[in-house]
């Protein structure tokens, strides 16, 4: 049994079908990449996995760790080790980043029946990871994502991933808006979590991120369907031919 099995998934948003039958299996320790142009349904896939409201499942199913994922609210999915790094992280005024990290980590631990960590232990953990990701401590004292640059927001998403150590991390266009140095930093953070127990679904528009996070499998999404699938070389082929060329071949 795979860690994640998506079977013939159909998802509609406001009555319009966006995903039109997606099938995908991810085993423990695997890194999969989903590539596709704007509007192909990439973000719909990531939000559906995380359980956001407004994404109606019109067909198919998702089995995660042997359980019906779609029956779980977002917070239970998080507690069971599913993590989504958002393309556009949200600002929450007045809530310090540190406080938010502590609340999140402890909510997950509580749900799993683990002991909560006190402020000092959380701080110790976060500091260590922040240093690796070159996140200044001052940022942790600021309100969550408020006034952060695009790069800072993305690095904070990776910091959360490092902190939660999810079984399955979904990275939704984490590379968008980042320069090459920032991409390298983010990739280092991601690669550090690559172990036989941790799997990832990397969603991206561009091939360049995949130079740094080398996937086991690549799936090309166009108009709500996978139009091509293969090994890491598929990403390079895509880079050369473009989405249009590939979609034509598939058709």
């Amino acid at each position, binding site marked *: 049994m795979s860690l994640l099995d998506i079977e013939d998934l159909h998802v509609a948003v406001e009555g319009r079908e966006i995903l039109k039958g997606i099938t995908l299996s991810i085993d423990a320790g695997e890194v999969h990449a989903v590539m596709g142009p704007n509007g192909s349904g990439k973000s719909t896939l990531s939000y559906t996995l995380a359980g956001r*409201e407004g994404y109606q499942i019109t067909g198919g199913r998702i089995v995660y760790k042997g359980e019906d994922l779609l029956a779980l609210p977002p917070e239970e999915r998080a507690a069971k080790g599913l993590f*989504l790094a958002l393309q556009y992280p949200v600002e*929450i005024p007045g809530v310090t980043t540190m406080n938010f990290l502590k609340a*999140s980590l402890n909510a997950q631990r509580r749900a799993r029946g683990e002991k909560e960590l006190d402020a000092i232990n959380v701080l110790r953990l976060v500091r260590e990871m922040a240093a690796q990701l070159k996140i200044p401590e001052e940022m942790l004292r600021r309100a969550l994502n408020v006034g952060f640059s695009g790069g800072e927001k993305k690095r904070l998403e990776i910091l959360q991933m490092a902190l939660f150590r999810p079984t399955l991390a979904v990275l939704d266009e984490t590379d968008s808006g980042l320069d090459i140095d920032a991409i390298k930093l983010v990739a280092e953070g991601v690669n550090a979590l690559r172990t036989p127990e941790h799997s990832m679904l990397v969603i991206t528009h561009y091939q360049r991120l995949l130079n740094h996070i080398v996937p086991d499998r690549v799936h090309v999404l166009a108009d709500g369907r996978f139009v091509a699938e293969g090994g890491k070389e598929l990403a390079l082929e895509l880079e050369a031919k473009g989405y249009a060329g590939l979609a034509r071949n598939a058709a």
Partner: protein
Amino acid sequence: MAVLQETRERVASLGEKYKYGFVTDIEMERAPRGLNEDVVRLISSKKDEPGWMLDLRLGAYRRWREMREPNWARVHYPKIDYEAAYYYAAPKLAAQPKSLDEVDPKLLETYEKLGIPLHEQKVLAGVAVDAVFDSVSVATTFKAKLAEAGVIFCPISEAIRDHGELVRRYLGSVVPVTDNFFATLNSAVFSDGSFVYVPKGVRCPMELSTYFRINASETGQFERTLVIAAEGAYVSYLEGCTAPKRDENQLHAAVVELVALEGAEIKYSTVQNWYPGDEQGRGGIYNFVTKRGDCRGSRSKISWTQVETGSAITWKYPSCILRGDDTVGEFYSIAIANNYQQADTGTKMIHLGRNTRSRIVSKGISAGKAQNTYRGLVSVHPRAANARNHTQCDSLLIGKDCGAHTVPYIESRNPSARVEHEATTSKIAEDQLFYCTSRGIGEEEAVALIVNGFCREVLQQLPMEFAVEAQKLVSISLEGSVG
């Protein structure tokens, strides 16, 4: 948005969650129903008051008979029958207790349920508590330590007897007997409250705190609080309020007067969670309160911080009269209204002196079918050259059946004055909630987190010991406000 739709249903269950809705079974001594000169005389004689105090009360009573209840606030309630209420209620005690050991254990049990640290060992955190049970103060802690510093902190009934000259000099000097319908009523019938005097140059060595509790049914509660900070003195005072659950509405009309002399500073914080009524809007406290501070001496400062989560109706405008030159007035407010609660609250900043400054930060949160109004006045008088005011009013709406209203009045009669007003209204966004839940935080905790973030500027103003409690209160009062 399903989250917001379910809000209403979940909010409906909130009325059942008022955990302070118990009644203490203690024999009460009451004056007969209704109000007349005899009742006023009875109250005064029960307190062994001097003649001047009785005269003040009778004057207020006669004046009140000629006054009309104000109706300009955005609150709606059935007409109050002032003749049907009791104006004096006291637990029957053999004699006034001299120490905690003599206090009725049932009273102490009540306070324990409220989580008030009454026993001295529990107040090592540096909080002195003057507990008011209905109309009579039953215990005061830490008196000795305060006396050492020269600070007087006692029930006002005691102050009238023991510090008559001080009380006579300042009582009614900020809120005149004739000020408004509710304040005048209070002046006639107030039965107890707190008195604080901090002498010249003294920094009060601890936070002072009073917990008010309404217990007897159909009893109006009329506290009177007077805080005086002499030249260069500093005091921080916190009042907390809780009332048991009852079907009938109860009237609460308190008066608080603050006087800051030259260079003095008074910080007055309120955490109010009177019973707000049930989910249908039945019962709950009517809270008509007059709070006013007078920065009488130059360079003095008065700061009001309030966290208002309770009462069926809140009618309250803690104000600052910036009389001295270079004085500072501040008002930090969190008002949460849920179910059918109505809150009409704000402040008045009256700039009389030169270089006077005021700051207003108001955070209103509405959920359920509640109506929340900020009503504020900033008035700059002709002599108040270089007066400055900054006002910030933020409203947060949870659900679609509630309302937020902002009614600022600005009057400037000095061309050098600078008055700024900023206002925002927002909803808890779906993307904020999703961001939290996708991190493992449940919706209810997420709302509490976001609302506490929204209120942060005000919560930071509270004394440390109470900030945590207030944060929890904010969370509790919004429990069940999302699905």
